[in-house]
């Protein structure tokens, strides 16, 4: 199939199993959310997909090709990208430079020593279109560290999108964002390209129910259930385990 297929993924640290027989698919156009209580293994799962961790067993396929042995950087080139839980930007660089870096990297230009980094025509066009897509055009030349937090999250998403991924993992895109700025994030997610496969990992249930078409619930490293937002909202086990517990 096209898209991402995770088959029977396991990860153990010594005797501690943190991912147990996980099966997930993510096809173009999907809007899935991964939820679960603290310590359910969401970060581990992301790290396994992006190649920061190596699985104990199981397969990760992209368009039918096994990518389990690829490095982090190689997986990005293959089309898997993720945003960070806590903003992880190039703080001292300007917003434009933050966007240029992934764009240059995607085109394989960051090994170039001679030309100026802000003179690559194709790159500059894309920088400007991303800036306007995320309504950041006014602050393009400001160092990222001087931006409001919500705006930093937008830069974060713009950067990840600049990699032209086919699989996008949004790791808690609204974490730390004041609720007043939260609609900005939902709006940005809705505006993502239609053919993109998106997996949102999020605590903010309002956001999850707004953007996700299917929800996967992870508990103790294993998948408890998967379904539409309505099904999940109706599932008693999920209520008890997650929604009830964390909101109670």
């Amino acid at each position, binding site marked *: 199939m096209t898209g991402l297929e995770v088959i029977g993924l396991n990860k153990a640290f010594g005797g501690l199993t943190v991912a147990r027989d996980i099966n997930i698919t993510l096809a173009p156009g999907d809007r899935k959310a991964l939820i679960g209580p603290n310590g359910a293994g969401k970060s581990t799962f992301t790290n396994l997909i992006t190649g920061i961790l190596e699985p104990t067993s199981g397969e990760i396929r992209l368009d039918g090709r096994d990518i389990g042995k690829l490095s982090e950087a190689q997986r990005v*080139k293959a089309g898997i990208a993720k945003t960070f839980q806590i903003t*992880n*930007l190039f*703080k001292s660089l300007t917003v434009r430079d933050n966007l240029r*870096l992934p764009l240059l990297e995607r085109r394989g*230009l960051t090994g170039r020593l001679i030309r100026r980094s802000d003179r690559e025509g194709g790159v500059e066009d894309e920088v400007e279109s991303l800036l306007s897509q995320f309504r950041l055009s006014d602050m393009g030349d400001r160092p990222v560290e001087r931006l409001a937090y919500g705006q930093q999250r937008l830069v974060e998403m713009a950067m990840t999108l600049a990699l032209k991924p086919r699989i996008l993992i949004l790791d808690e895109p609204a974490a730390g964002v004041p609720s007043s700025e939260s609609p900005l994030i939902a709006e940005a997610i809705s505006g993502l390209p239609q053919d993109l496969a998106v997996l949102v990992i999020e605590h903010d249930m309002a956001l999850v129910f707004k953007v996700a078409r299917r929800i996967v619930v992870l508990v103790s490293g294993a998948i408890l259930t998967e379904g539409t937002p309505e099904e999940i909202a109706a599932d008693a086990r999920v209520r008890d385990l997650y929604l009830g517990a964390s909101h109670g």
Partner: protein
Amino acid sequence: MKSLLPFALMALVAVVAFYAFPYNLAFLTRVVITMILVLSLDLLIGVTGIDTLGQAALYGTGAYAAGLFAVHVWADPVAGLLVGGLAGAVVAFVSGLLLMRTHGLTLLMLTIAVAEVFQELANKLDWLTGGADGLGGITMNPVFGTWQFDFIGQTGYIYAVCVLFIVTAILKVVIGSPFGLSLRGIKDSPARMRAIGTPVGRRRVAVYTLAGAVAGIAGALAAQSTALVSLSVYDFQVSAEAMIMLILGGTGRLWGALIGTAVFMAVHEVAASVDPFNWLFIIGFLVLAVVYAVPRGLIGLPEEIRRMVGRLK
């Protein structure tokens, strides 16, 4: 145009220094050579965020390579520079494969260790390097077959200044390039660079190799202008002083490296001639004053002053 202004200023200072201190050209040449070494360190510490205390390994190898090349192969200065630069790059590349996997204190200590190993090797291989007596017998040909190295050091100074200009210009271009942008990205967040698909480890080795070439060129210049290479080129002191000068001037923008070197060496020279025994007091207080007053280095001084004036208003 704006980016050329500092170069014009640099040229002006170089010319003024030439005429203002006609009898101190040997010292000025040493300052210029040290500037090149400190630039190589700025590329690592200031631009890429790789903290190292082992520039002496690269500088010293450049010096010995250029010295040996001049004695045994060809005494042409420019060819010697290239050989020195190449030697520095090779050492940096090979050692970088291990070093660039580490960070922080571990990296500092490993880089020190590499320089120490080289120093001991140079001592052991005394049939080649002259050991503790130093590698002598270096007599350089005229630069481009035209300009003879003269007694008062005019040729040496102009030659070194030209090399400094070329190195600074090249590094400016590199820092402004996509490669340079990726280095600055690595300084801010290596994790994020990995997440956008940059092979950070390889990039670090690449920049270390480049810095090795620059440090090697500085070493080669030192060998040519002193006409003798001794074990002291590998001294911990070489690396440590380069780092002090860089932080003193301010990191990341190359100009800080130049200013820091000039100020440190000038203060040292003046203080040591006023009181050869106790000049270390002066250097110590200078260093402390800079840390507490302008933590970002002398290059941050104008901004700091502006801010203080602003507060007064």
